[in-house]
């Protein structure tokens, strides 16, 4: 795929204050800086498992999440670090997750940004199986409809995930029930190594909308203000009972699927071109300092603040300890609260105690 030529910044969407324009910049910058920190920690082998980047997709993540209220529920994927930060996830949480710390949001049970909070900040912990979050969010938003709560849900899928049966069943169910759900397809050109053209024969993924009886709208995913505006319209429509909207945002995955991926399958010059011509932060900086007349040092101040926050968060996260092994057995069910410890962990039993459960059964005494 080729980079689209540099567009001129859109007019500020109605209702965005100058503070909010800076806020958008702050979230995008925080996303990028935090990821750069994660790369450093990854190289120091402090990250357990893989590292997934959203470099070049920050506008898509931040602009869409920014259109939600606190009570609205967001369902992120691995490229949505920015969305989660906007929704209230903290750098410390993210760093602890990646380093598998005991006080991470999942207490070391799940990887990277697979975590959530549906009690206060309202974002749902994703699973790896692609597409599955769409039916789940159909149900989250169905509950809003049934209870007549003025809340909206937003679920992200990649271009690749649109091929899953779960995506299809979830969008169709939400559409036929007119659930207040916004489905954001982040078309970043690749699913792992597979280009979008090998994923779907349709030139525009937004064209799937009419097949579900919902609007299908494509937008420039690297223009944070356009992403915000189109998402805001879809969110309003959902809140007013207008049901589902399918948004396709065109963006580009500049890094590999994960850090280990050398992108050998990417045509020469492609990533460089996107970096040079269509970086969402560069574009937004130009818009802010150009069209909206912000001073360069206003942005520099934000950059500095972000660096400090990420430094501070890293110090805190690095001091966290590893999980307590026995905690691995808790919370599978509400009842029983703990799963039993295997008999041999209770120590070797003599023949005398043969053939009854070892005394230590259910307790951990190794």
């Amino acid at each position, binding site marked *: 795929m080729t980079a689209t030529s540099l567009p001129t910044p859109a007019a500020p969407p109605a209702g965005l204050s100058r503070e909010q324009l800076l806020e958008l910049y702050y979230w995008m910058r925080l996303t990028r800086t935090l990821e750069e920190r994660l790369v450093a920690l990854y190289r120091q082998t402090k990250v357990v498992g893989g590292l997934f980047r959203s470099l070049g997709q920050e506008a898509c993540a931040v602009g869409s999440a920014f259109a939600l209220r606190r009570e609205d529920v967001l369902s992120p994927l691995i490229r949505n670090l920015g969305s989660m930060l906007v929704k209230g996830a903290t750098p410390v949480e993210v760093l602890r997750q990646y380093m598998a710390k005991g006080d991470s949001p*999942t207490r070391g049970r799940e990887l990277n940004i697979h975590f959530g909070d549906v009690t206060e900040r309202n974002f749902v912990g994703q699973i790896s199986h692609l597409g599955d979050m769409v*039916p*789940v969010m159909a149900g989250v938003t*169905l509950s809003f409809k*049934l209870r007549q709560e003025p809340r909206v849900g937003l679920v992200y899928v990649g271009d690749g995930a649109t091929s899953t049966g*779960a995506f299809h069943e979830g969008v169709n*169910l939400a559409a036929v029930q007119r659930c207040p759900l916004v489905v954001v397809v982040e078309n970043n050109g690749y699913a792992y190594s597979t280009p979008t053209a090998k994923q779907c024969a349709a030139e525009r993924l937004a064209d799937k909308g009419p097949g579900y009886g919902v609007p299908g709208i494509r937008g420039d995913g690297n223009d944070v203000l356009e992403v915000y505006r189109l998402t805001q319209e879809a969110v309003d429509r959902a809140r007013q009972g207008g049901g589902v909207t399918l948004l396709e945002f065109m963006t580009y995955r500049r890094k590999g699927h994960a850090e280990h991926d050398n992108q050998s399958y990417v045509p020469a010059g492609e990533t460089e071109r996107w970096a040079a011509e269509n970086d969402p932060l560069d574009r937004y900086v130009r818009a802010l300092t150009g069209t909206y007349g912000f001073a360069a040092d206003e942005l520099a101040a934000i950059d500095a603040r972000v660096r400090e926050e990420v430094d501070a968060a890293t110090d805190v996260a690095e001091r966290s300890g590893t999980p307590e092994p026995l905690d691995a057995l808790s919370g599978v069910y509400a009842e029983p609260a703990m799963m039993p410890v295997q008999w041999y962990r209770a120590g070797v039993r003599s023949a005398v105690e043969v053939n009854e459960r070892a005394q230590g059964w259910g307790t951990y005494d190794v």
Partner: protein
Amino acid sequence: MSEVTFLEAIRQGISEEMERDSDVFLLGEDIGAYGGAFKVTEGLLERFGERRVIDTPISEAGFVGAAAGAAHMGMRPVVEMQFIDFISCAYDMLTNYVATARYRAFLPCPMVVRGPSGGYVRGGPFHSQNPEAAFLHTPGLKIVYPSTPADAKGLIKSAIRDEDCVLFFEHKYLYRRIKETLPAGEHLVPIGQARVARAGTDVSIITYAATVWKALEAAEQLQQEHGISVEVLDLRSLLPMDDAAIVATVKKTNRVLIVHEDTVTGGIAGEITARINDLCFEWLDAPVKRVAAHDVPLPYAPALEDFVLPQTSDIVKAVRWLADY
């Protein structure tokens, strides 16, 4: 009080819970105006309205996932599989998303997935399945498979009140064939407790669902014709399993036959045998034996289905073998 069928008992349990808790609602195919393929939800749309009895598209993964999402938000969805055979389409959603939600993300997921299961009804390979074994190694799920109207009602109510996801299998052979007078007033049966369906001293039969009735039939014959006293343990709950009740019956009779309708290979009898070995091996005076379906997809023609599935005469033979041992 008059007798009610197994099916009617389930309907009573569901509607009592819907009365009690306005967060309980139903999702499934053709459960509204039509009342479900077997009419389990008949009348509930009229009684509780479209908000609480929702007809879905043909999307098992879709509405199981939707149930989970609604459950996260505090609702208590009860999902019907038109036939339990179609639960396979939601296998990923149940085992990966639903079962792990509490553990990996502290997401509550109180929901029930219920539907007609089992054979002996000429349903062929896709309308007769017993899927319990496929979910047994999935921590996070609970599995219930009752055999009497009272247990069906008491357990569906407990399942709906449970804080986690319960798979509730309803043997369609029992729906209209089994009747009894239900206990008066609020009737709950706790998940995880087996029931001694018949007391005996010589041989124990451990079973559940439709084969409980075949075991009881066999037990009567064995008593009358061979003077063998058989104890029948109805597990009722398969996950969690009632180890104490299993150990108690083994220690009492020292001879065990496990009977189920699923295929012998990979069926739940394996897990039960392992637990018996683990917990009361020394009390065994004979090998634990199995009576279960032959290892084939369930064929449709009566002559074939009858041959493949376990029959009362098979149980009689197997128990006599164990008694002679």
